[in-house]
């Protein structure tokens, strides 16, 4: 086992030697070594995600987004608390003087313009709100729902590898765990929808469950295809299977192994977005239809938990997408070199790379959210069953064929089968699969486009730039 795990075991042993029962020592060590870093990485990012999203939305909408909250308020509070014997006005003046001081002013400006300080303000506001439980709600369900949502969002992270050494538990059935633990969210939303005793929330809850359950299938199929390709269900080994020696280590990534993988990646991404209820699939929240959907009655911290769960889930999707298609925590170039570093340095670099990949995936998700309108619930279902499931199936078979082809070529070229069919295709097989499958797909697309009716003249007029007058 690696050093990280050894120190984990050592700490557990130390706890036991202090007189704690062995299982408690293990739990405590687990908290210290795995849970704390996980929360330390995921929570701030999930929080920052909201600010990030507001800024991105603002940029696309001719606005500037959060721009006013700085650190003056925090400083005032701190000074007031630190110098309780001084008058309030004096403390405030002191704080303002502090803010005028160069570096502090710079920091203030940075936090203000990026909107990061807004996060603190929002958090304080959310925590400070009255814990409102409307009369007539089903108290237990209403109260339990936010916790379940948070649990459903965080549990899958147990198996997500952040580096060779940093992984909560490298389960051999990692992907199955992700799918199973993630399913808790559906329960949480249903409980919130039903327990709130409100017609809108109930509609939202029903929609969410129907949708999540349906989209489990394309997501599952995509996962199955990748698992088949890599020959493992463990996320850590999946990353390892995408290792490519040499400078151009991205050549090993699943995404570019076959055209089917590209389609599969798109399918997975869409289906995953649908599973975490974001636009264009946010039918459960649908603020213009269902007021606020399943969390209409939630306020303050309860609502905050749902929001946090949502952003954590986007983060999870980013992480999964990276693991399944983008080589996990591996660097696109020179992975070999990073692996030869000492464990700590390697871990830090890998965590950074993984986070960056997640952020890109999240960013695209936000970009989509502020671009597309919402599907109707029946269209959401139709998309899942009529488009995504068949697509995923086609890709699954396509990949299987490619693997067989690769094995066949290997057999012909070397006169024997080197190994079981696997992700690392020989070059000829790789090129052939791109040529054949890619050609077929392109031909199909072109034929489909030809067969369609032309664009109505009115629409063409609307979407083409007016002729410039001389």
């Amino acid at each position, binding site marked *: 086992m690696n050093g990280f795990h050894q120190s984990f075991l050592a700490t557990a042993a130390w706890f036991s030697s202090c007189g704690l029962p062995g299982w408690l020592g293990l739990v405590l060590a687990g908290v210290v070594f795995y849970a704390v870093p996980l929360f330390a990485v995921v929570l701030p990012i999930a929080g920052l995600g909201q600010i990030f999203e507001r800024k991105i939305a603002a940029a696309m909408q001719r606005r500037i987004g959060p721009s006013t909250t700085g650190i003056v308020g925090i400083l005032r509070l701190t000074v007031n608390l630190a110098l309780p014997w001084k008058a309030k006005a004096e403390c405030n003046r002191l704080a303002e003087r502090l803010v005028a001081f160069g570096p502090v002013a710079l920091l203030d400006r940075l936090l203000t313009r990026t909107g990061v300080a807004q996060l603190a303000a929002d958090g304080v506001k959310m925590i400070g709100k009255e814990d409102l439980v409307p009369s007539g709600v089903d108290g237990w369900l209403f109260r339990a729902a936010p916790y379940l949502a948070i649990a459903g969002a965080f549990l899958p992270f147990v198996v997500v590898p952040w580096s060779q050494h940093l992984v909560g538990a490298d389960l051999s059935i990692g992907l199955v765990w992700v799918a199973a633990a993630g399913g808790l969210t559906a329960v949480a939303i249903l409980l919130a929808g039903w327990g709130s005793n409100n017609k809108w929330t109930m509609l939202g809850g029903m929609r969410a469950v129907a949708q999540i359950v349906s989209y489990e299938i394309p997501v599952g199929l995509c996962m199955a295809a990748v698992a088949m390709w890599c020959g493992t269900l463990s996320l850590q080994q999946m990353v390892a299977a995408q290792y490519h020696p040499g400078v151009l280590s991205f050549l090993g990534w699943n995404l570019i192994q076959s055209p089917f993988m590209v389609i599969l990646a798109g399918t997975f991404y869409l289906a995953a977005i649908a599973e975490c209820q974001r636009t264009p699939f946010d039918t459960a929240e*649908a603020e*213009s239809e269902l007021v606020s959907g399943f969390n209409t009655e939630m306020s303050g911290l309860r609502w905050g938990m749902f929001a946090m769960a949502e952003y954590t889930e986007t983060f999870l999707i980013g992480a999964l997408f990276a693991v399944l298609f983008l080589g996990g925590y591996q660097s696109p170039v020179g992975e070999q070199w990073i692996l030869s570093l000492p464990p700590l340095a390697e871990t830090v670099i890998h965590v950074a790379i993984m986070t960056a990949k997640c952020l890109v995936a999240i960013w695209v998700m936000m970009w989509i959210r502020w671009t597309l309108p919402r599907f109707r619930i029946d269209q959401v279902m139709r998309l899942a069953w009529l488009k995504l499931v068949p697509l995923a199936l086609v890709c699954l078979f396509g990949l299987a064929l490619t693997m067989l082809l690769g094995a066949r070529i290997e057999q012909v070229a070397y006169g024997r089968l080197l190994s079981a069919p696997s992700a690392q295709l020989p070059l000829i097989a790789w090129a052939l699969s791109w040529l054949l499958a890619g050609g077929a797909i392109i031909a199909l697309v072109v034929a489909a486009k030809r067969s369609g009716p032309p664009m109505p003249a009115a629409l063409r*007029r*609307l979407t083409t*730039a007016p002729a410039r007058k001389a």
Partner: protein
Amino acid sequence: MTVEAYTVDGDLMTLNMGPHHPSTHGVLRLVLEVDGEVVVSCRPDLGYLHRSIEKIGEFLEYPQFVPYTDRVDYVCAMNSNHAYCLAVEQLLGSVAGSEVKIPERAEWLRILFAELNRISSHLVAVGAFAMDMGAFTPFLHGIGLRELVNDIFEKTCGARLTYNYITIGGVAADLHAGAEAEILAFCDTCEREMVRFNRLITANSIFKGRLAGVAAVSAADAVSYGLVGPNLRASGVDFDLRRDEPYGFYSRVQFEVPVGGAFAGARGRVGDSYDRFVLRCIEILESVRIVRQCLEQMPKSAAKADDPVGGWQVDANKQLRKPPRGEVYCRVENPRGETGYHVVSDGSRKPYRIKIRTGSFTAMSIFEKLVPGLMISDVVAVIGSFDIVVPEIDR
């Protein structure tokens, strides 16, 4: 897509959509009976925004009512001003020899501003509709463009929403200095930005899919339910008061009147929600054309002779002219369709009765027929596609 051959089984749930609901564009209440997601019946309940504007009119002198017409439909106040002022002018001129003489420049300014207001109103309509469909970005781009129109209005008439600009006998003020260039620049910006807007939302296949075939109104239905304006034309009825019954100087400008034609492609039907949306987008471009023509044909100088400020129609004693006994119905083409002012005069300074006919009110009446069989999300689409403005319904 409507749910066809749908049979209700089990209990129905009554769902109050509104009066406070994000998509009812004001305080409108729709009492829906739903079976799951499918709406079985829809009963609009009005009156939450009733301000007795018609009754107030009976207590005010003729010119004092103009600011109230701003508030009948605050999204297109200019057009409402125009309708009312035209009605009173007709009333004043109903005795031979006492016709109200409106300066030529004022006539041009009237339709110039009416068209600019039509653009801004349609921008709100299409933007808000996109927002109802869950796309927030197009809404803010629509609103952003509308701000430019408002800036022009603000500089000329002093207000951004309730303009009170068109007066009985003229307009309140001449264009501000440099207005022509500003308006032309706006026309260019508008055309350019609308292309991007349309690429972003109108051509989007999710958006099309949401609206294609939803709540299609046949031409016969549209006529018999009294739909007007873009809602009527979307159903294929080629009728536009600006062209067919020109008032003001509309006879002197050229423009096309678009009609619906199943723009959504294979799944679309004539008169569906998508047609209504696209029609508004096209009308924006046509209005830009009219604005350009107005600027070209308008008398250039603001010399005393064509000072547009006709202002108060006063007699020799500096008293407001009293209209003769009689009544008049005057209708104009608002962004939301035909808006009519029926003004009854008993010969005094104050109208005996004012009755306002608005497009949103009649559009409202067809909901009861259209909505059953649609899904809850489609109800939102229906409200948005008819471009309902609730104060106009309730008055």
